């Protein structure tokens, strides 16, 4: 089987992770997974831990993270400076997507706004 490609990691609520796993993104081996299901009782330190673990792996190219989860670890994302893996904020089922909170979108809006004025 082709193992050369990189994986997509997911940190998110149950619905998001299920859907992506259904689509075939999940990768579960004996001791590691590339996803974390954030439930109501998941602590912030667990999320931080998972984020650090996933971004430190070199076989992961993209980390998808639910926006409401991203808000919990905003301090980590703010200081995150690596290009790969790319961290991508995605909407979740319960919380509508707010482009204002995504820092890339903030930059783009600022740039496009500044360009048009």
């Amino acid at each position, binding site marked *: 089987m082709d193992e050369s490609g990189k994986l*997509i990691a997911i940190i998110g609520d149950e619905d998001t992770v299920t859907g992506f796993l259904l689509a075939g993104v999940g990768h579960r081996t004996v001791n590691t997974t590339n996803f974390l299901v954030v439930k109501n009782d998941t602590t912030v330190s667990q999320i931080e831990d998972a984020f650090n673990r996933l971004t430190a792996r070199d076989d992961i190219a993209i980390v998808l993270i639910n926006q409401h989860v991203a808000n919990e670890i905003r301090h980590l994302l703010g200081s995150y400076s690596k290009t790969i893996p790319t961290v991508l904020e995605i909407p979740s089922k319960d919380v509508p997507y707010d482009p204002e909170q995504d820092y890339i979108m903030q930059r783009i809006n600022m740039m496009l706004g500044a360009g048009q004025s």
Partner: protein
Amino acid sequence: MSAQQVAPTRMALQMYKGKLLGAKKGYELLKKKSDALKARFRKIAKQIHELKQVMREDAATAFFSLTQAAQYVAGDFRGKVLDTPRPAAVRCRARTDNVAGVKLPVFESYETGSEAKDNIGLAGGGQKVGQCRDKYKAWVENLIKLASLQTSFVTMDEALKVTNRRVNALENVTIPRMEGVISYINRELDELEREDFTRLKKVVEKKREAAAREQALKNELAAANKLLETDEALAASAAVSGGDDTMLDEFDTQEQGDVYF
């Protein structure tokens, strides 16, 4: 400024002229690169903007179809999906795109062909589950596109900053400094030339003066000699022509008397 440390010689001037030329060329090229990057940067920003909107709709439909499938048709299969061990079927490979010398990562998704064969929805709603899977797959595709764009955006932002800094450094520091050095050398060389010219003029003047003095001396000498000569000649001729005169006088008067009267 460093201009004071440069030796004001023609060689240094030549060298700095070459350097200035190089700096100007480099400035032009970097400016072009910066413009190219900027154009691409804007395009990417716009694409991200659009794709984020698309992604929102994707997400909504995907969640909706998952809810449909899980809640109403196939029963809650989320736990089963989460707990099934499996290798990743969708992976992405990174390719690099080159924009004006800046390498941008581009992710491409591909399927490994190990399609998960879990028996979800066997009892009912299999079609719904399949639809849901397709929705999520489409979403993943878009997300991967978005991820490459976003990575490009960040990389390009960095590259743009560096390039702009270089352009500005060349424009506002390096080129003026070289021009300063060149003008300093030119001034010094001109000064030297003027000094030389004045010195030459002075020398010529002195020489001329000396020549004139010599000439004057010579003239005086010559004049004195001549005077002496003429004096002698006069004295000699006076001595010789004493008798002649009287003879001629007599002759003249005789003749004149003959002719006129």
